[in-house]
């Protein structure tokens, strides 16, 4: 136990401020304000992999590590679409995931935002449309915003999220 406490003390606080060179600091404040205004201070995201290669998921995971610690803005990931304000959808929509994505969308209470994260979700990416893929998420459900990248970095995901709230 002492070793654990010692390691925690040595590690210290690692959470980073968003880079100062961009407008992000301002947007960061707006994010918190936006979430406070629109979502009572708490934004619940249900992430849906609709056919991704898993790279987007790895970077979405990283949002929860100490450096990004996205919960500090009131953003948290939830298990049920019924608890969600936002669907964060990755991947080209595989035809085998189409029904599950539609059902998840229908299970999310309105008002709901849909964000397509990553190039595949935005436009079909490397996979496009085929017998097995419906391509962009917007081919299947209405999309409010896209975050490009293959995969988008954690910072790009945060920026994208901030932008969505700014615009809605």
């Amino acid at each position, binding site marked *: 136990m002492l*070793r*654990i406490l010692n*390691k*925690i003390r040595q*590690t210290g606080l*690692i959470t980073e401020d968003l880079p100062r060179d961009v407008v992000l600091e301002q947007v960061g404040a707006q994010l918190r304000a936006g979430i406070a205004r629109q979502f009572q201070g708490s934004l619940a995201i249900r*992430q*849906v*992999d*609709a*056919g*991704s*290669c*898993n*790279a*987007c*998921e*790895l*970077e*979405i*995971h*990283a949002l*929860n*590590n*100490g*450096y990004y610690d996205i919960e500090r803005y009131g953003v948290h*990931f939830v*298990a*049920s*679409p019924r608890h969600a304000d936002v669907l964060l959808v990755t*991947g*080209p929509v*595989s*035809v*085998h*995931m*189409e*029904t*599950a994505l*539609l059902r*998840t969308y229908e299970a999310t209470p309105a008002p709901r935002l849909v964000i397509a994260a990553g190039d595949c979700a935005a436009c079909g*990416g*490397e*996979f*496009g*449309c*085929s*017998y*097995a*893929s*419906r391509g962009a998420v917007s081919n299947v459900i209405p999309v409010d915003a896209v975050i490009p990248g*293959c*995969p988008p*970095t954690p910072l790009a995901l945060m920026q994208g999220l901030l932008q969505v709230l700014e615009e809605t």
Partner: protein
Amino acid sequence: MSHFDWLSELLARYQDERVLVRRGSARELAPAHLLEIDAEDWGRAAQVAAQFGCRWAGVWAEQHDDSLLISAALAYQGDHLLLRTAVPLAAPRLPSQTPYYPGADRMERHVQDMHGVVFSDHPDPRRWSRHNRWAPDRYPLRKDFSVDNAPLPAAPEQDYSFIQTQGAGAYEIPVGPVHAGIIEPGHFRFQAVGEMVLNLEQRLGYVHKGIEKIAEGRDAHGLARLAGRVSGDSTVHHAWAACMAMERAARITVPPRAQALRAVYAERERIANHLGDIGAICNDVAFAFMWQQFARLRELWLRDNAACCGHRLLMDCIVPGGVARDLSAEQVVRLRSAVDPLRRELAALYPILDDHPSLEDRLATTGVLSAEQAQRLGCLGYVGKASGQDADLRRDHPYAPYDRLHVPSPLFQTGDVEARMQVRMQEVLDSLELLVVLLDTLPDGAVQVPWQAPAAGSEGLGLVEGWRGEILSYVRFGADGRIARYFPRDPSWFNWPALELLIHGNIVPDFPVCNKSVNGSYSGHDL
């Protein structure tokens, strides 16, 4: 011991069993050997190979005019042998190899769904990769099936007959395809009594995005990009396997510096994923401290990737003929100097992992896969190594640059979650050691040779030891340097079925940690 010195003995067994085999050219698919077999002997050929002790390593088909060419890969002591036969397109029947190799079950069903091969004696002929979105008499990988064929209307897949259970107190838990966390989709059907799991059945294929079909007609660089997205966490290893297959088909030798840089990327990918997994295993038993520590180390590691290699996950770093870009002297120094700080961090964290009673209580004896089960399924990577399967291509049949390196490979016998975590812990240290040697002895010179497409019909086999285990990639070229066939066989094909076995008798709440300890790729398997 030299390679393939066991082959004459296997051929003698075939002769004894009256299985007619014809030796194919040893050059075409080098370093693999090719044996041509009559279709009716296909099952018995597997039976003899299984008795001989070969591991089964994959099956795929390709259409040539009015026949289907079927290839099955076998492995023995790190060498690979391809069995090949042909069946007429009009009546594509073939004896199943699954009765002798249970690990062949799903891949044969994939060939059945994608090419329409009927495997007689298959113990479970239900569809696998098809989820009712294309007609049962249409086969996407046949030439008469257009890549932009419109899918059938979306509808829940209700007619798939899952294994049923009956009895007092037995109940069923359906999970997925949309899971509770940030994780790939798939369906798990549990039967349980109280907290104990009686049976688990997996239904995968939800992220099938037609990778094999859309590979057709791409050029070599386009295939490398696609291969890098077969499984996003294995982008380096899948791209390497695909490029190796294409380069062998084209008889192109990659310059020494590019070979070394590929291994640098590969070992960095292994370390990044193992760090993430160790933390995630701890998180699944509520040891949040360790999860945050390893997530922190992984993040720092990925930032070095971005700074030195141009991409956090190293996508598109490997290209046909070499690597996309060189490392500068400063970047080499930065990657080299990241090794010792990580070692120091691990030297502080590993003793806590090794010596934390509540962690041991959850991980030891949980999710046990016996050596016999692992051997029968052909389990690979950390799943195999945790259950006594001592195989690592980097050591057993080293490809450049591993042929000049000493590659240790950890081996455990207990087959539980703890052993699968211990393999990862040791492999991180071993990979750091390899990185030191690779970076300290980085050859000078070019990092790419110009790509030159081979003649139509040329084929190649790529084999690399991914962080999940052996990846096998098959490539055949068509006209104008375009890809005619690409089949990437992820190790997850053999490790997913292991999860169905190792969960027996465990409690439902231990499923997440058991699943994480196996960490199969959905995308890499569903294709």
